[in-house]
């Protein structure tokens, strides 16, 4: 099959290209800029690039287009995911204003932008090749980013991530090969052929593919890497990873579930995923109880939260897709907000993520404590935050799709999680004369701004939920 590549195809890639070029510009500017401005120069350039990309990306909303013969599909679905990934990149890049050594910022930011390119590619991936390309681009940059701190744990985290993630990629690649063997094509569109429903290659290949996906989503029992990697990685990287990898992989998963399976297969092939999602909600939240480090805690929290999002997709309804995206957007803001606060109170050795450092925070910095409280309440799903609305939307859609047991798992998980989140709130508001909290950085405008914007977004999303139309994933 020959594909005629026109300029429209390249325009479809424009947001990704802008981000990639921005990364190059950041690196180049770092070479020539004077030492004392390079940190802020890199951040400002990256922010500009991301904003331009986000503006450009918006145009494709409600204009579905299959570029490169269906290998990359833009439309409402890809736009929403790409915007979320760009927000994640934005929220993480600004954290470098508070953290890290001056001379390494530019490289880290460039890597993070390339990583975002990979995730954005996954959001629009319409063929097995593009999916794999996106995943590898995302992961390769992340391996390097994880190792970029001066602590042994960072190197350990990078190594762990490399090994385990490669194993997952191997599973996924093997599954993709079988899917290719079954359909004779790398295009996801060709997997919908009803003849395939009885082909064992599709079942095995689909199963292996989903194992890989579960790994990337850090679903129980493939979750063990995520707390270690989150803990070891530098704070901005953890913030980015916690949202962007989930968003990209969720996009791939949703496209596979909604658009790329022969009819009649979904119920049986996906049942294990729903079960695993249910277990993740419980296990993730139970795991949170024993943590003494904010990054580890948020890793376990992320395991549970991705379970909630998957629960929305169970049943494959159009509303479920919208609510999964709504919850993902809400999760993006609450997570980035929590990381912004962590960055605000941490020193260069990044001790800010130890939960002990949050004792008595309310005395030192009432604003930081109040913002953190909002984010934790949102993660726990308490009103008046988007987490509350997201959970109730997911509950109603799961219940009406017939997956009541997933709804119950969500409720039980939420009840457990509450204790873990409230424990931090309590520590922050404890009066502790010997509190060894670092005083918040005197003035880190970008991180503060990020936290405040996230807080506003978390509350506003509750009262003015966006009407997400045309966000069903397509294949061509």
């Amino acid at each position, binding site marked *: 099959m020959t594909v005629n590549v026109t300029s429209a195809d390249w325009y479809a890639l424009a947001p990704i290209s802008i981000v990639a070029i921005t990364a190059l510009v950041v690196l180049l500017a770092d070479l020539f800029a004077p030492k004392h401005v390079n940190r802020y120069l890199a951040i400002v350039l990256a922010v500009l690039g991301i904003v331009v990309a986000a503006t450009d990306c918006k145009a494709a909303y409600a204009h579905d287009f299959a570029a490169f013969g269906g290998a990359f599909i833009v439309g409402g679905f890809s736009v929403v995911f790409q915007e979320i990934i760009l927000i994640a990149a934005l929220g993480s890049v600004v954290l470098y204003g508070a953290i890290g050594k001056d001379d390494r910022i530019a490289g880290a930011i460039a890597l993070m932008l390339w990583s975002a390119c990979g995730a954005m590619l996954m959001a629009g991936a319409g063929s097995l090749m593009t999916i794999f390309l996106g995943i590898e681009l995302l992961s390769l940059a992340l391996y390097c980013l994880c190792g970029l701190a001066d602590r042994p744990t960072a190197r350990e985290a990078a190594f762990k991530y490399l090994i385990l993630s490669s194993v997952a990629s191997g599973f996924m690649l093997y599954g993709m090969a079988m899917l290719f063997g079954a359909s004779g094509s790398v295009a996801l569109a060709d997997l919908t052929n009803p003849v395939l429903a009885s082909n064992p290659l599709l079942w095995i290949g689909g199963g292996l593919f989903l194992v890989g996906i579960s790994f990337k989503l850090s679903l129980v029992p493939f979750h063990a890497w995520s707390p270690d990697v989150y803990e070891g990685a530098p704070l901005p990287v953890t913030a980015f990873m916690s949202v962007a990898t989930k968003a990209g992989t969720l996009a791939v998963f949703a496209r596979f579930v909604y658009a790329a399976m022969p009819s009649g297969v979904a119920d049986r092939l996906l049942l294990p995923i729903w079960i695993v999602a249910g277990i993740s909600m419980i296990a993730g939240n139970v795991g949170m109880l024993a943590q003494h480090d904010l990054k580890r805690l948020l890793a376990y929290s992320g395991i549970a939260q991705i379970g909630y999002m998957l629960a929305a997709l169970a049943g494959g309804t159009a*509303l479920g897709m*919208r609510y999964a995206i709504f919850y993902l957007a809400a999760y993006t803001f609450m997570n980035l907000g929590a990381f912004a606060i962590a960055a605000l109170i941490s020193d260069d050795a990044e001790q800010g993520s130890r939960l002990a450092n949050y004792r008595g925070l309310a005395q030192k910095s*009432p604003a930081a404590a109040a913002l953190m409280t909002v984010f934790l*309440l949102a993660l726990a799903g*308490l*009103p*008046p935050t988007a987490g*509350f609305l997201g*959970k*109730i*939307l997911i*509950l*109603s*859609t799961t*219940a*009406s799709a017939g997956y009541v047991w997933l*709804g*119950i798992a969500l*409720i039980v998980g*939420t*009840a457990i999680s*509450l*204790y873990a989140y*409230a424990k931090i709130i*309590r520590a922050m*508001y404890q009066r502790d004369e010997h509190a060894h909290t670092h005083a918040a950085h005197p003035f880190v405008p970008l991180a503060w701004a990020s936290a405040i914007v996230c807080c506003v977004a978390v509350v506003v999303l509750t*009262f003015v*939920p966006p009407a997400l139309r045309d966000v069903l994933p397509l294949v061509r």
Partner: protein
Amino acid sequence: MLVLSLVLVPIVAGFVLLVLRNENPVMSRTVGALVAAFTFGAAIAAHGQEWSYRWLTRPFVASFHIGDTAISYWLVLLLAICTFCAILAASVPRQRAFVGQMLLLEGAMMGLFLARDLLLFALFWDLMLLPVFFVLLGWGEHVATAWRYFIYNFAGGLFLLLATAAFGALYGSTDVIGRSDVHLAGAWVPWIFWGFAVAFLVKTPVWPLHTWMPLTYSDTPSPMVAVVSAVQSKGGLYGFIAIGMAFMPEYVKAYAPILIVLGVISLLYGAFVAVTQNDAKRVVAYSSLSHLGLIVVALASLNATALQGALIYMIAHGLFSAALFLVLGFVESREETRSLVRLGGIGATNPRLAGALCIAALAALGLPGLAGFVGELIILTGIFQAGLTWAAILALIPIVLASAYMLRLFQGIMNGPQVPDLPVRRDLGWLEGLALAPLVLALVVLGVNPHALTTFDTGAYNAVATTLQGGTR
């Protein structure tokens, strides 16, 4: 818009107080009292007003729909009065933050009672737990109590959330509170009913879900526990009437025996335990369990007279339990103990304090002429009418016991020989008297002229009563 200000003004004022740096206790008390007084006036002026703004259209219709119903109107007034009195009586360390939390609590509960949308109801239900939780953490005696309060009630809130989601999915709209044309049917309805019921039974509370309550009531500072016991506990009962009875009457009827048994156990258990308690606040806490158990029996008896009595008794209980907790707070702040064993003979030096406690205790034990009596009498009549003779007979026992524990409470604190090592403090001050006056006045007025409350039966209440009579025929 005025009706919206009932919710927003306390919440905004509460946040402002929390953020301010001015630690002047007079300022915070004045601001708090003014806001509470404003909500009282605004609640009367905004009676019958509604405000609505579409929130969701899918998966079900939900709105920010605020406005009082014939039942919630009285609860809103009760809330405003109790908050006003409690803030006037508040004298705690870090007063500004405390009053801020009180106002947040008032705003959240205003939202609860004014919500005409189930989702909004669920939102405010969870929201009203937070100020109490924070006050228990910041001002309470034991951290464990705060957790117990929060986990019990939040678990109940999750059931409420699940039931609300299922209600929305089944009916297509949650913008239903106060409407009389809504009726749920289907195989899922029993589950939805129990989802709501668990939340309401925890909040009320009813045996065996009450174990968070005595601890919370004794550990929370008196001004806040006055509001929690007087008004927050009515959230469950109000939900039971406005949601359970209005939308699922046949399930209320089907499960009424269970509810009646739970209610009877609560009212007996609460009364018997109250007699044995030595902590003054716990006496009142267990007496609450007993009184609210009586209301649960009244609601579950599905009799229009009993329902009328329940509504009156809800208001009366709110008034006298708030007064009791406030007076006990005054005693505690003077003598630094609540132990009935340790206290004694204060009445000789503090006659006005003794008089205040006496009125509150007499209202609680159902003295004719005060509001509590009217409610109890009508409830018992209604329960008899409904043919639940055995329940009515059992419900008489706690009324006798109420005299025992309330008089024991009064005597333990006020009468008897003066305890030599207890500090002698000044008598009830004018501000404290002012804080109690509205409650006592309301108790007397409603006791002498219960007619004001028996004109309840209009609007939504009428609809509930008609449905019920249809259901019991």
